[in-house]
């Protein structure tokens, strides 16, 4: 068993392994950067500080300069704010609505389930980038619009996932017992179903967060995301793509930032601390 091969330690009745801890630290670091970015910027993000464009890494400009000679370090730090913030907001909305609707559909069944499922399946069939394109073309590109668009795109997936899990729980006898007791739907989904599906739902949350980061970066790469001079990591890659032949850090650093965040989230999901069931130890 692969899981047993990684050494696990225990803390507060949970066992965890090193990979999970490192991943959690990377995510924590990016979150802190996102929160405190304005206070730690070495230069304003719009200021041209280098005479050359695509400048190399050197003292004072640790990540080099971009295609206009702006400080890359400042832009990446500030980009974290948009990438992490927008994605987090979007994934919260998407997962909350999707999971609640999914559980309600599973518990209620009947026509409500059919209507919801068909409607969200239809939503699911719209290509996400195309949907983003249409919305941005219609209402323009603002941060709230971006968050909502991203959330709407990922609600059907979260709904499908939660409904599939909840349907299995719904057939258990304790659900029948609760129903015969006369419990309301709020209690059924909140107290009986949710505690049983919370782990896979959290894993799905993390996965969806990664998808949203990538989609947001993709939209920004196409120029549909944040508008200059603001830039999230995807936009940073796009605007500096011309530096690729020169191996400019300006294009490599934001790519690494996207990779480090998404890979860390995935590793954390796969290595969440596990509760130790053996109480005698």
């Amino acid at each position: 068993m692969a899981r047993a091969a990684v050494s696990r330690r225990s803390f507060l009745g949970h066992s965890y392994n090193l990979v999970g801890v490192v991943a959690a630290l990377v995510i924590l670091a990016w979150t802190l950067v996102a929160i405190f970015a304005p206070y730690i910027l070495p230069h304003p993000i719009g200021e041209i500080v280098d005479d050359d464009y695509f400048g190399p890494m050197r003292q004072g400009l640790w990540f080099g300069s971009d295609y206009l000679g702006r400080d890359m370090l400042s832009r990446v730090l500030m980009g974290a704010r948009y990438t992490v913030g927008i994605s987090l907001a979007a994934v919260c909305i998407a997962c909350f609505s999707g999971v609640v609707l999914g559980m309600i559909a599973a518990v209620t069944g009947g026509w409500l389930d059919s209507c919801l499922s068909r409607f969200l399946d239809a939503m699911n069939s719209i290509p996400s980038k195309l949907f983003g394109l249409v919305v941005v073309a219609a209402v323009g590109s603002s941060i709230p619009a971006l968050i909502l668009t991203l959330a709407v795109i990922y609600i059907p997936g979260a709904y499908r996932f939660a409904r599939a899990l909840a349907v299995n729980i719904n057939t258990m006898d304790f659900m029948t017992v609760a129903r015969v007791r006369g419990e309301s739907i709020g209690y059924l989904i909140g107290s009986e179903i949710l505690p049983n599906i919370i782990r896979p739902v959290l894993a799905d949350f993390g996965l969806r967060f990664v998808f949203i980061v990538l989609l947001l970066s993709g939209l920004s790469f196409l120029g549909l995301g944040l508008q200059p001079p603001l830039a999230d990591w995807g936009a940073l890659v796009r605007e500096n793509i011309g530096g690729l032949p020169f191996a400019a850090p300006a294009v490599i650093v934001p790519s690494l930032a996207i990779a480090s965040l998404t890979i860390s989230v995935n590793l954390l999901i796969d290595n969440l601390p596990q509760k130790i069931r053996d109480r005698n130890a």
Partner: protein
Amino acid sequence: MTNLVEVRNLRIEATTDAGRLVEIIRGVSLDIADGEIVALIGESGSGKTTVALSLMGYARPGCRITGGEINVNGKNMAALSEKERAKLRGTDIAYVPQSAAAAFNPSSTIMEQVIEVTRIHGLMPPEKARQRAVELFRALSLPDPEGIGARYPHQVSGGQLQRLSAAMALIGDPKLMIFDEPTTALDVTTQIDVLKAFKSVMRAGGIAGVYVSHDLAVVAQIADRIVVLKGGEVQETGTTAAILSAAQHPYTRELLAAFEPKPRQSHADADARTKQLLRIDNVTAGYGAVRDDGLPLIRAVDSVSLVVETGRNLGVIGESGCGKSTLARVIAGIHPAAAGDIVFDGKQLERAARKRSQDQLREMQIVFQYADTALNPAKPVEDIISRPLAFYHRLDRQARSKRVDELLDMVRLPRGLRYRHPSELSGGQKQRVNFARALAAGPKLIICDEITSALDTVVASAVIELLKELQRELGLSYIFISHDLSVVEAICDEIMVMYNGERVEQITPDKLKAPTHPYSKLLFSSVPKLDPTWLDGLVRDPELVSQYGHR
């Protein structure tokens, strides 16, 4: 080496998720001679299946064979490499699992799966294997031996599937067969056919066997010798007759005691104040499309009427598929009836639970068979029991906590258990929690749907005793649904026999009203007795069996 199997000082360890080592088998030794059938009996968790599996050199994930020798046919299974063991499995040693339904692959035909062993080990050409399989089907008295192989697993009954899995094990011509509770999931009427078939093939082939079970009466029919296990240690070994007549160890005596007829509680005084608690008139319910007359296509319960009086118990028995569980669900309103009246405590009840008043729901509680699925695995015992208190009685936190302690005392569970999750309890403890939750509501009637079927004999009889005591203290009535006659007889004042969705007859054990209907007779005569000669001496009316038996 004189014996086929010689196990010496076997030790098996398991690693828990906290990295702690637990010794689950502590120095077990046992011998099996050629052609001998040895039964391993013991309660759940005694290590009987672990010992049986170790004969194939197999330990379940997380377990390790850490010491001792397992000599089977002159080879030490514990020391062989996995490749060498694989060669012996299916040819020298074969395994018949508990649930044949779960052991067959639903997407390929039975014949394919039965002869798979010969293909893997290259024992014989497929044509010959098919012929051999048909011979085995015939020997196991399966219907239509030529044609049954072409069917898929879902097209045959549970008892047939269990015999087919024995055919699968026998085709490699093994010297040793391991049976892991092969009849536990079957009805009594079916169990007899399967046991008879097993016994005759084993005897004809001179095959040695290990029979794992917790049912002493079944073991008495098939085994030559009995090994009693508890806590991973051998408690007692002896011939079947010796164990049954002169058991030494307290645990074995306890097992035997569970079979003794229990003194019935008398309800002579109850007759004076017979008050109808529940009356059901011509209730019909079923599944499938509703037809023009308002009745469903397939009727699981067909015009059943019954009466339960206050403080008295009604037993409902019948084999699986007779509609007894559907009846329970109809009464509780989980599966609304299509026709008929349900009168509870003098008031007409709505057919669907969601239309009944909260008090009506509270006064009638249902306890399900599988405590594993009836208790939410994500919640501690405390939360599970206190929910009805908060929901029906609106008790505050302190009052709830006090009441939970009282309820745990009532069902004889230590108070410390309240912080545990259901997965940390034994089967009997879970069933008690399941019952405590029903008690918490403060009901007048409790519907018990096969609540002892998943428990072993000793635990089941303890649970029954508990139910009786609580009845005396709280004046409850039970509807007790089971396929196990001895359980129903122990607790019920009236017994209703169901067959094919219909009520066949009602029997009153108190008044020694014996079964008269032919189906009831068949059912009553199919319950295994402790007498080892019972199965061989059993003569059943073939006409009856062909009419009612699901072969």
